[in-house]
């Protein structure tokens, strides 16, 4: 496995957009936590945005699909759609892993 992110001290800032407690949203959060613990232990923050409570943010942040994970840091911004159950694609999407 080749981590594509720069230094190992780099901070990761992740935001997960969900709609209430839907099974897909819950699954996405579980999967995200697991991946982060495995690859980014100690240097990540996850912010969960519930669009049911705050629908305006869907417009402001251009969210269409739910769940959507946005990697705010490190730059560039990346968007990953889905419940992250496909770990391989999720890691590639977050650029924690290079495409084979």
């Amino acid at each position, binding site marked *: 496995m080749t981590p594509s992110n720069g230094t190992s001290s780099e901070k990761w800032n992740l935001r997960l*957009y969900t*709609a209430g407690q*839907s099974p*897909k949203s819950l*699954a*996405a959060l579980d*999967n995200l936590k697991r991946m982060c613990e495995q690859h980014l232990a100690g240097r990540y923050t996850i912010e969960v945005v519930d*669009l*049911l409570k705050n*629908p*305006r943010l*869907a*417009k402001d942040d*251009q*969210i*269409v*699909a*739910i*769940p*959507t994970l946005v990697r705010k840091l490190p730059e560039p*911004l*990346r*968007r*990953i*759609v*889905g*419940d*992250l*159950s*496909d*770990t391989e*694609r*999720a890691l*590639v*999407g977050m650029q924690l892993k290079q495409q084979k």
Partner: protein
Amino acid sequence: MKMERPQARLLPKAPTGIAGLDEITEGGLPRGRPTLICGGPGCGKTLLAAEFLIRGATQFKEPGVLITFEETGEELAQNVRSLGFDLDALVQEQKIAIDYIRVERSEIAETGEYDLEGLFLRLGLAIDSVGAKRIVLDTIESLFSGFDNQAVLRSELRRLFRYLKDRGVTAVITGERGDGSLTRQGLEEYVSDCVILLDHRVTEQTSTRRMRIVKYRGTTHGTNEYPFLIDEKGFSVLPLSGLQLDHAVSDERVSSGVPALDEMLDGKGYYRGSSVLVSGTAGTGKTSLAAHFAQESARRGERCLYLAFEESPQQLMRNMRTIGVDLEPHVKKGTLRLHSSRPTLHGLEMHLVQVHNMVSEFDPAAVVIDPISNFIDNSTAIEAQAMLLRLVDFLKAKQITGLFTHLTSGSAALEATDIGISSLIDTWLLLRDIEIGNARSKGLYVLKSRGMPHARDIRQFLLSPRGIELKPVTGKSGKVKRKK
């Protein structure tokens, strides 16, 4: 399946406010239901959808939501500004809400299950923010290029249309025309209530825009292809209704502007609201006759629209002054409007729509088209005939006296009108070369004039600085020079 009982009640409709479209849809788009507008690139679907929304907000007190997937709100506002609509002001007044939904393939990776709840939340928010009764989605197909999972997209689309119906908003969805199907992604499968197809075609370098209602469930509608125009006032569709012979007729007579000609026509001139054809070979005085009529109309204080397809207004005014017809004061007063354009600039329908619009706006009592042959030459005989029929019917329905000049070529038989419109014409004047003694001269005669006794003889037609004079042709020598 629920049984439909058409006689139970009429389908409620949301008027579009677009000239002509409400006529052919018999009241507008299905209220509270989605309508699909499809067509190729540049056919005007976005503009039509936007105008539906804007007119809803301004004319029918129905606020609207514009969801755009391709253009930003700013770009769209700019586009509709060219049609005279101020979208920004409507947004300010909270009559219209705009949300630009951007889906960019390159940014998105898909990992497992998802739905488009974010889209629904945004729609709901936008609808609630203005209390929308109308919504436009332009064009939802963009989602298909943003997401991979077709199964999710299709089930979400189905859910979307159900959602819109539940919210009770009248929706317009646009879609790009696909190969062998109405839309690329088969949107027509989801929108089953009303489908309108727009078309923009170019034949022999002239473009025509046409509209057809492919289906409209639960209601009758016009099924033809209707020409439409996009100009600085927005959309206008030409309803080809009124192809019936039930217009009111008038007993009132209007002067032709030439006393001697009035005398030939039972001493009174044309019937108001009738159609007059003046045909003849080049240089026989058709325009002069038309100008007399226009001047006479304006003199009576009745507005006259003069469409010149061969001369500019200045040229026409100058030339007519030499025969004692001064049009300029009437133009200045506003009773006479001269409009020139090259017939080849537009397709036949465009002319018709243009005439339609000008007549609706200017509300004239008389219309002169000089000459009508010019744009007939640009089209096939069948098209030309259909167009003239529409024009004549349109003018008659409005009780407008129409005078058309027609250039006949020397080789064609004079009476065999060319375009086969004789049956549409009430009064037909023929101008031709005649021989008097050994001299060549011009002659005029009344080929027919419905509903009045008219002179049957040929009169010598003279142009002088005082205008047109008609003299009886005396003696045996006054014979018509036939051209075979």
